[in-house]
């Protein structure tokens, strides 16, 4: 009977396991092996060489790209949390329940447009002739247009616009699961609003924040489109460098080594937040 149940259990998980094996484990092993191969001339030579990883240390633009990717990703993650939390709070506790669905729909509406189109739209908004500069000049706050497009500010803005939606959802999902009794009990025990938030609400909503933050980190650090369109190549991120390696030279070994480094960073991020990570809150 037990053997039969076990078999049944394996039968249920087999599709997921096979899927993971085919579309994650095998590609990952191939990518790992590729990162240890070398390109001799235009010929791929399989082997066990750490030359591609050594290049990371030797070529300043490569490790600089890693640093830039990390800086942008951390900035985006923090800003997105700071903006998403109040938004999720308002939707969860200030918007009447019958309007919550509409409010959430409005919050995620930008998801409905193409990512590329949205990035180019931001480029126009932030350009010297764009809405932001024109508004600031009309208000007399600046005399000359300021450079916003093709900067890190533009990249971060484009990212934050996207990831605030994601974080709002994960935090909202967490907030509405909280019983109002927690707040009432804290108030009864003499805590003021800030203390209630600091010591009761925030710790209880940490899984939602961390889950959204982790997803933001993963998606942001591997993104090519936003920094390419909005950053104006004024600083390079790892995905941009990977694309250059592939575009003309087809240097898959070096590109794979860079991709492994990215995965390493994501793994570190996972380990850092594993304690609070609750993907079932999404």
């Amino acid at each position, binding site marked *: 009977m037990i053997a039969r149940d076990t078999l049944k259990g394996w039968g249920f998980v087999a599709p997921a396991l096979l899927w993971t094996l085919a579309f994650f484990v095998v590609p990952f092993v191939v990518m790992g092996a590729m990162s240890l191969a070398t390109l001799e001339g235009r010929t791929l030579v399989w082997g066990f060489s750490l030359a591609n990883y050594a290049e990371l240390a030797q070529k300043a*633009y490569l490790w600089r790209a890693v640093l*830039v990717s990390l800086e942008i990703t951390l900035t985006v993650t923090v800003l997105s949390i700071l903006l998403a939390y109040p938004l999720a709070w308002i939707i969860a506790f200030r918007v009447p329940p019958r309007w919550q669905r509409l409010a959430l729909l409005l919050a995620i509406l930008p998801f409905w447009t193409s990512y590329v189109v949205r990035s180019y739209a931001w480029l126009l908004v932030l350009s010297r002739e764009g809405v932001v500069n024109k508004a600031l000049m009309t208000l007399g706050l600046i005399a000359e247009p300021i450079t916003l*497009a093709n900067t890190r500010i533009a990249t971060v803005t484009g990212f934050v616009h996207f990831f605030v939606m994601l974080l709002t959802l994960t935090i909202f999902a967490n907030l509405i699961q909280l019983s109002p009794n927690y707040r009432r009990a804290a108030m009864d025990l003499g805590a003021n609003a800030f203390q209630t938030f600091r010591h009761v609400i925030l710790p209880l909503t940490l899984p939602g924040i961390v889950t959204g933050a982790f997803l933001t980190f993963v998606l942001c650090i591997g993104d090519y489109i936003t920094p390419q369109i909005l950053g*104006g*190549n004024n600083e390079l991120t790892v995905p941009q460098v990977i694309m250059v390696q*592939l575009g*003309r030279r087809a240097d898959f070994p070096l590109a794979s080594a860079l991709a492994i480094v990215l995965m390493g960073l994501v793994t570190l991020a996972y380990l850092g937040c594993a304690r609070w990570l609750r993907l079932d809150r999404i």
Partner: protein
Amino acid sequence: MKKLTFALLGSTCLAPAAMAQEELNALVWCDHTDPALIEPFEEAHGVKVNLREYEGTGAALALLEQSRPGDWDVLVIDGIDVFRAVDAGLLAEIPADQLPTGDFFPEVVMAENNGADGKTYAVTEKFGYNTISYNSDKVDPADMEDLTKVWSEKYDGRLTIYDYYLPVMGLAAMSAGIDTADISADTLEELGTVLTDMRGRAASVAGVVASQTALATGEVDIVVGGGEWLTAVLAEEQPELTWTIPEQGAVRWAQSIGVLADSEKPDLALEFVKYIVSPEGQARLATSSCFWGMPANAEAGAHLSDAQKAVLRWDDQPDYLARTQLYPAPDIDLDIEMQDLWLETLSQ
């Protein structure tokens, strides 16, 4: 039995539909995806042409290596990279006597690029220039005739650089008096100095769409590495966006087309190549909605309007061809050094 009968009937009914059209698979640049270019060939031959766009020769070669033999029939490739496809055994020999190269602008026949060991593997189909595009209302056109003035203090923050290292490094070399063919490891330091100056003045380094958008919206006034391919599609709405070839010259790009060695439809693929280099096909390719460029076949002029020829600067071609140099065509080691220098400059 009944099931078998239905199955047979079904397959009999479906067969004509499934087999009605032969298909040709072509790996191309975006200018070939214009229906105005492809549909006349499809109608004339009763075939369906499946087009797959790519960017970067490396990406195309990787895609071909990962494909099954026979998956692809036609390849459009950067003129300077034909030898890479030939070395990899990817291109089939094509009969030179069936190609109208006698009608081509002589400078772009480039038999040495398109062939090896006396055999022809590809044919030039389109060319143009990586030079200086600018907004004539915002900059002094006279300044645009001198490369060193383009990235001078006067235009600080008002230019964008086209995001492809070969033509931009070619322009940097020409501004320093170095021919593109003479770029070597020994000249890279000098090129690096020019690139750093250029980069320091630039607001951004952008791809095709982003640089076009930047120029059209007034974000920048100059595109280093631009040309007719960048401004031609905007000419009607914004005639102030124009381009020139400075006194130091500019870089000439050329794209070639060939038949893949593993094609199972080599005759049809060759017909496609012949159509593309025919005067009619050339006129359509030159004015493709994706980007414009000069047709290799001079007979295409008969199929272009005066306005189209004016945008392409048809009458200036003899002068332009004489004053421009082909893309740098580095060997593998130099290519790696050039790319490293480019990425180093970008990340400064």
